[in-house]
């Protein structure tokens, strides 16, 4: 698939800067008491999820490897493209680290949720725009559950939010769900991390108009048949 040419500065500076920032900030943890920092490297499952996510992106035309690597590009351009791909992979892995609880059953639940959702998306074969919307919803919900709901459950000062969540979850689970305490600043950092990642995805090379038309025509043909 051919792509619209990407400005050199965007490919060489903007995209690596965005994705490396996400990769760095994704593993940042801030202790609720004292605010001590720690940096969590990506667990193995997030590497698997990142590979799956990149596969979904490539299938949907959100990530077009041919626009970043190939014989038609010079060595320097291919090096830039490789940096973008590697930083996108690191950012994807660390974004899952950012949105997943650090331990316990909830961590397993979150990872399974991501795994099945990505698998389902892979099977559905969405186009670029739909995949972007889908990822915003998936990451947005994971953010809300991890940094708003679970943080509220763990916070004894949360008041009505905690009571409301406890009532909502009553009967839905076998026992009480324990929240995960997070520092307020961690929520803001995670929000910025998700936002930067989505901005980076929007800035990736797009298919050239003729390729997009061909893709739409093929899809329409499939539907007609």
């Amino acid at each position, binding site marked *: 698939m051919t792509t619209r040419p990407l400005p050199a500065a965007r490919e*060489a*500076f903007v995209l*690596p*800067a965005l994705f*490396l920032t996400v*990769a*760095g900030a994704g593993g940042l943890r801030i202790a609720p008491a004292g605010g001590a*920092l*720690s940096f969590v490297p990506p667990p193995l499952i997030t590497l698997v999820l990142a590979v799956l996510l990149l596969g979904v992106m490539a299938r949907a035309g959100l990530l077009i490897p041919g626009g970043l690597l190939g014989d038609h590009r010079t060595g*320097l351009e291919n090096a830039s493209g490789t940096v973008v791909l590697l930083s996108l992979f690191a950012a994807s892995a660390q974004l899952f680290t950012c949105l997943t609880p650090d331990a316990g059953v909830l961590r397993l639940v979150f990872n399974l949720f991501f795994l099945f959702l990505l698998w389902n998306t892979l099977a559905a074969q969405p186009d670029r725009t739909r995949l972007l919307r889908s990822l915003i919803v998936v990451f947005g919900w994971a953010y809300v559950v991890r940094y708003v709901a679970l943080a509220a459950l763990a916070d004894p000062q949360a008041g009505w939010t905690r009571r409301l969540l406890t009532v909502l979850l009553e009967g839905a689970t076998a026992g009480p769900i324990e929240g995960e305490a997070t520092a307020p600043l961690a929520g803001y950092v995670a929000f910025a991390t998700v936002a930067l990642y989505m901005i980076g995805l929007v800035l990736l090379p797009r298919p050239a108009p003729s390729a997009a038309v061909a893709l739409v025509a093929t899809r329409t043909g499939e539907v007609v048949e």
Partner: protein
Amino acid sequence: MRGLPPPRATMGAVKEVLVRVAGLLFAAAYAAFLVSVYTRQPRTVQQLASGVAASVGAYQVDPVNFQEGLRFFRNDQFPEARAALERADPARQDAPTQFYIAYSYYRQGWGRVYRDDALYHQGLEVVDRAIARAPGGRLVVPDPTLQMHTADELRAELQRGLTRELSDLNPMKVFEERK
């Protein structure tokens, strides 16, 4: 002049090459910085900032706090000495400062009839850091008030203190002197 590209096109191509080379260098430096942060695990924003300064060679130990730490250390005020030395080297990048912090754990943990394992463990952790920060892993501190001048001696002494062996029951050990 047929066959030659117009000057503006040549300038554009050169500019693009420069942008891509600069971008590669920037990405490599940024990635190396992130890896170093994840390796060093700074606990505070101050440690993070000092680590950045250290990575560009602009990091310096605060001499006032260092001297104050030494004064406390020589007066056997070890917690005070560690507090001052930590202020002097917030990024934990300076090998001699880390050596003195480890030494303070040794001296505080040393007892004529017992060794404080918790303090010795902390000392071992810090002396390992000092060795890691020293060029080539070799650290010599020529301080005449100390009995051990190298990080290797200090490390071995801390490890001996943590090892349980039959010679610990030797009553003559109470005559051993603190180093």
